[in-house]
């Protein structure tokens, strides 16, 4: 057996990690200022207007957005891996990222050709389309699954993967129709980014992600049962159909909101749960909250790297997470086993 850390230590370590990373994210940037710096300036009676603007209008919303997105993606990763009984399941394996991106691209092309207003009653159409297409992806998965007597995890997974491939073709198709000068904007979206300004995206993320995440956390005990044996879980009183429905819908909703606000950011739902599981074991009552915290911290850290890597401008965060996540995943494969998986 792998040695595990105690529940208290795991939560404590994850919380400490979050505090440190968030503090760093607020303090580090092109301008040398942080909360402490600000306090010192204020005590010295200097003007802090510029510093406060940078801190509260630029760095804080960005940090919060990265944290919320990372936390949501990691939590959904945990839940989907148990629900699909597969270590490769992530929010994106079900085609959600592909579908969301396809939606965003469709909106961009339609706007470009004057067929779609940029926003309708204040809702940006790119985000709305990303969300609607992701929702349609889940709906299709359900339609396929409900045609069968009992939707097995394998059927759900294969349907999602297939829809993801179809969505990628859709993306190619919209690229084909797009004006060449538009392709740069479009591709930038596909790389994901938390380079937001102001609190509207943060509010959308908070309202969309936080309640759904709390709800998802309540399914931990049932996911433990389901991961062990579907039939035994049913025998012990877990309503399997309701569990599948709840987790899929909540997971897709969380992912849909995140993809629509910050674009597809890959590998968070894979790297974080697998790393955390090695410390906490596979019990979801501990794994899920610790993954949530660590996912938030991880994406904040990636965002910091995106800002600090010395190149012109900054690197899109989706590229950073993939550059970290890809090799990490290969390492897991080479080592021959995923921590705490029966593979």
């Amino acid at each position: 057996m792998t040695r595990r850390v105690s529940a208290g230590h795991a939560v404590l370590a994850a919380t400490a990690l979050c505090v440190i990373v968030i503090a760093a994210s607020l303090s580090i940037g092109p301008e040398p200022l942080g909360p402490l710096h600000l306090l010192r300036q204020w005590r010295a009676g200097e003007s802090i207007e510029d510093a406060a603007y940078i801190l509260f209008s630029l760095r804080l919303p960005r940090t919060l957005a990265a944290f919320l997105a990372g936390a949501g993606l990691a939590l959904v990763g945990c839940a989907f891996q148990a629900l699909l009984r597969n270590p490769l399941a992530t929010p994106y394996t079900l085609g959600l990222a592909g579908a969301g991106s396809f939606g965003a691209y469709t909106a961009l092309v339609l706007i470009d050709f004057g067929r779609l207003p940029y926003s309708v009653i204040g809702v940006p159409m790119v985000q709305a389309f990303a969300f609607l297409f992701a929702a349609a992806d889940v709906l299709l998965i359900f339609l396929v699954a409900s045609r069968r007597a009992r939707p097995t995890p394998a059927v759900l997974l294969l349907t999602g993967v297939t829809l993801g491939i179809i969505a990628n073709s859709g993306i190619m198709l919209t690229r084909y129709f797009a004006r060449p000068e538009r392709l740069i904007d479009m591709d930038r979206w596909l790389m994901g980014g938390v380079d937001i300004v102001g609190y509207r995206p943060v509010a959308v993320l908070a309202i969309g992600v936080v309640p759904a995440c709390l709800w998802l956390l309540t399914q931990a005990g049932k996911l433990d049962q389901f991961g062990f044996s579907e039939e035994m879980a049913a025998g012990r009183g877990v309503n399997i159909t309701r569990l599948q429905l709840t987790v899929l819908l909540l997971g897709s909703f969380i992912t849909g909101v995140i993809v629509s606000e910050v674009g597809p950011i890959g590998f968070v739902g894979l790297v974080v749960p697998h790393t955390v599981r090695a410390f906490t074991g596979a019990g979801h009552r501990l794994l899920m909250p610790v993954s949530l915290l660590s996912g938030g911290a991880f994406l904040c850290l990636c965002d910091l790297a995106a800002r600090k890597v010395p190149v012109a401008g900054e690197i899109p965060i989706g590229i950073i997470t993939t550059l970290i996540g890809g090799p990490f995943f290969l390492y897991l494969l080479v080592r021959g086993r995923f921590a705490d998986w029966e593979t």
Partner: protein
Amino acid sequence: MNRCLAAESVAFAYEPGAPVLRDVAATVRGGAVAGIVGPNGSGKSTLLRLLCGLLEPGSGRVTLDGRPLASFRPRERARSLAFLPQGVQPVFLLSAFEVVCLGRYPHVGALAGPSSHDLEVARRCMRDTATDDIRHRSFMELSGGERQRVLLASILAQEPELLLLDEPTAALDIHHETEVFTLLARLAGDGYGVGVVTHDLNLAARFCDTMVLLSREHAVAACGAPEAVLREETLSAAYGARIRVGAHPFTGTPLVYAEPPEGAP
């Protein structure tokens, strides 16, 4: 109180027009081992799923102490009867102790973790099944016999009064097979009601108090005491094969043997 789980003239079909059970009756009573036997595909596992309320019969009814099983809330039902399916394949790496703790699910609130009382029950169930020594080992690294005993501890941790087990001795050697059945007989002696699906008619003859024999036609071919069920004509018809029954040289219980098909070398 002596619990009684009964299926009364139940019929079931997964697909319309292809019945898997026709007019079947079976009873599992506290203090006794009830064996469910029959050829492959005769509907034994299906009958077990009906008995533990995972499937609803198309007609007929399943009752627990006279009350329709469907009227129980699922977790309430799970505190009375526990189900051990065939071929449990966990996807997560768990220690034997963690596996047994999973059995506390019907007693633990949705948000709360297991309490110290729950952990104590789990330990007690492991001692009862002689698995306490291996509680820290990884479940999937255990031998088949150890794994089966841990699973048994895990359903005992539900603190049920009735146990329904689907082929708990499949893939076990003769020693471990007997070990599992001895444990089941002991549990029945302690007052548990046990319903067990098995292919080993000789073990069933030795350990079961009552038996139900399902036929290839998905109906009850015989039921009652092992001696009444394990008869040459009945078995041969139910299995569609030439089956011989003698007496066990040491125990005197029926000894069943399938003849090769006629004309075979």
